[in-house]
């Protein structure tokens, strides 16, 4: 008898104690990042931490180590902890769905960063604005060649959202320059060796080329190799993504510019919007993160 009574008292105490704990937990945001083995995502995490400190919320950060199983268990942990919201940068757009559905069932709002989810209820998706990036690249290229001339577009894998959006932005920019003609627009599948072969062919067909915009750096690096092998000088190249080889090519003066994503901004905006949402503010379905040009 005495033991049972003690137990029930203990349980009551626990219950009372856990109440403020749960309340405090709603000020906590859970963050699951696909991998911290990549400087891009480390910077993203730093951005999130900076914003959290500024706004006075607590972050619980998990590294999924590019492993979907680890991502799932981290999400489950956060649901168990009853965090206020979960910010997830999925390892895979499909693999994250069951965890999102679990969070939905537990009433915990989910935000996706950089990589989206194919289904499940997500408050908002925070990712780079590829249309704006394509437009920025196009305008830079146009100004660099003096507002007139012949340009080539190397297209990513046709039908992918990155190729669609970057191409759309680029074409929007080109509309503002009636003196510029897009003489070739060919798919090179985001791939360096395809970029090389496709641009070799375009060089054969086009005796005059003033500029090239490629939907990613891999293709533009292939195109630069093609132009150098053919001895064609004076072509302005612009890429996208700011991968290491491209940043080096910019420093060497072989590539005029590449568009960089801003992972820190992604982290900052992710936390900012999650907090806004928890405070009851209405927020849009997607939050575009600005990009920047790397020109030196």
């Amino acid at each position, binding site marked *: 008898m005495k033991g049972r009574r003690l137990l029930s008292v203990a349980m009551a105490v626990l219950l009372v104690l856990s109440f403020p704990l749960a309340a405090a937990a709603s000020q906590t945001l859970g963050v699951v990042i696909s991998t911290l083995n990549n400087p891009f995502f480390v910077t993203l995490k730093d951005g999130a931490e900076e914003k959290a400190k500024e706004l006075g919320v607590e972050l619980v950060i998990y590294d999924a180590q590019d492993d979907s199983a680890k991502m799932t268990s981290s999400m489950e942990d956060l649901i168990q902890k009853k965090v206020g919201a979960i910010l997830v940068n999925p390892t895979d757009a499909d693999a994250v769905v069951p965890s999102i559905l679990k969070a939905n069932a537990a009433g915990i709002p989910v935000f996706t960063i950089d990589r989206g989810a194919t289904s499940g209820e997500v408050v908002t998706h925070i990712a780079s604005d590829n249309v704006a990036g394509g437009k920025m690249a196009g305008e830079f290229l146009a100004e660099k060649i003096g507002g007139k001339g012949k340009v080539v577009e190397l297209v990513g894998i046709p039908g992918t959202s990155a190729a669609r959006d970057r191409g759309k932005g680029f074409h929007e920019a080109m509309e503002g320059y009636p003196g510029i003609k897009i003489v070739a627009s060919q798919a090179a599948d985001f791939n360096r060796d395809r970029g090389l072969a496709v641009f070799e062919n375009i060089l*054969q067909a086009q005796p005059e080329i003033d500029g090239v915009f490629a939907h990613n750096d891999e293709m533009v690096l292939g195109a630069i190799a093609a132009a150098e092998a053919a001895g064609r000088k004076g072509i302005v190249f612009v890429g996208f993504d700011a991968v290491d080889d491209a940043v080096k090519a910019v420093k060497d003066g072989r590539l005029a510019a590449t568009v960089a994503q801003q992972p820190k901004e992604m982290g900052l905006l992710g936390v900012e919007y999650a907090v806004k949402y928890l405070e009851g503010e209405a927020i849009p379905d997607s939050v575009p993160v600005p990009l920047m040009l790397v020109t030196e």
Partner: protein
Amino acid sequence: MKAGKGGVLTRKVLFSPYVVLGSVLAVLCAALALMEPRFLTVSNLVNILRQSSVLGIIALGMTCVILVRGIDLSVGSVVALSSLVGAALVKGGVPFYAAWGSALLAGGACGALNGFTVAWMRVPPFIVTLGMMGAARGAALLFTGGAPISGFPEAFRLPGTGWFAGVPLPVLVFAGVFAALFVLLELSSWGEQVRSIGSNPVAAWGAAIPVPAITASVFVLSGVLAGLAGLVLAGRLDAAQPTAGLGYEFGAIAAAVLGGSQFSGGKGTLFGTLMGVLIMGVIGNGINVLNVNPFYEQVVRGLVIAAALVFYGRVSAGSPA
């Protein structure tokens, strides 16, 4: 078939696979030249040859593998792995020729593993090389953490960038491989044994041909040639990438089959594969030169290859009447 006896002979000559493939190539080139005069320039034709050499080197090895009723799905991954081995060594200060040798060795080692498992462990080549396709790609990714290795000394890049007597070195490498394999297949006893294994393995065992050793040697050859293709590609790009060569196995198989190789073994020639490689190269070049909408590209590529195969299949089925 109303043709008389003389007609059958003419038909046989006219519809031999080489003549058919040659005319497909000629018609393609003529059509492209009419649509875009710049297609038919020496520099563009040299360009097509140079571009085709990487796939061509692999496809020649694939032809030998298909001859012994095999298939090698790992070539694209082996291109990546072996070029990374060469690249890492040359960046680490190893002389360029030693780095070349190591890349070829790495390709040969992958091929030897394939060959051993197929020939002695009796595992179907599709399964074995599918496994190697994943393993070699994974090893390539692990080896570099996913990043490319770039910026090589000029000498290391030579197989991809050099010229000799007005001909790009990749083309000469391709031609050299073609000549060497031609001698091996047509004039050596090895070639004879390869063909007999392909046309009738049971009879080959009976004829005291060392079937496992010959079969394995063909996979080693395919691996070494994938390594060589990797060196040419890395030279051209000035970079070795863990993602290089994705899908090359399909291109190589398509070229060999387009050239008349049959999965039932024993049939297929280097010359046919060469024509297959050139047809694919001309299609790719034509699409870019004519600036065909990227959305149509796959359709055009698929249709031209399918049309060539149907034509070729009908003709070879109907020819000896």
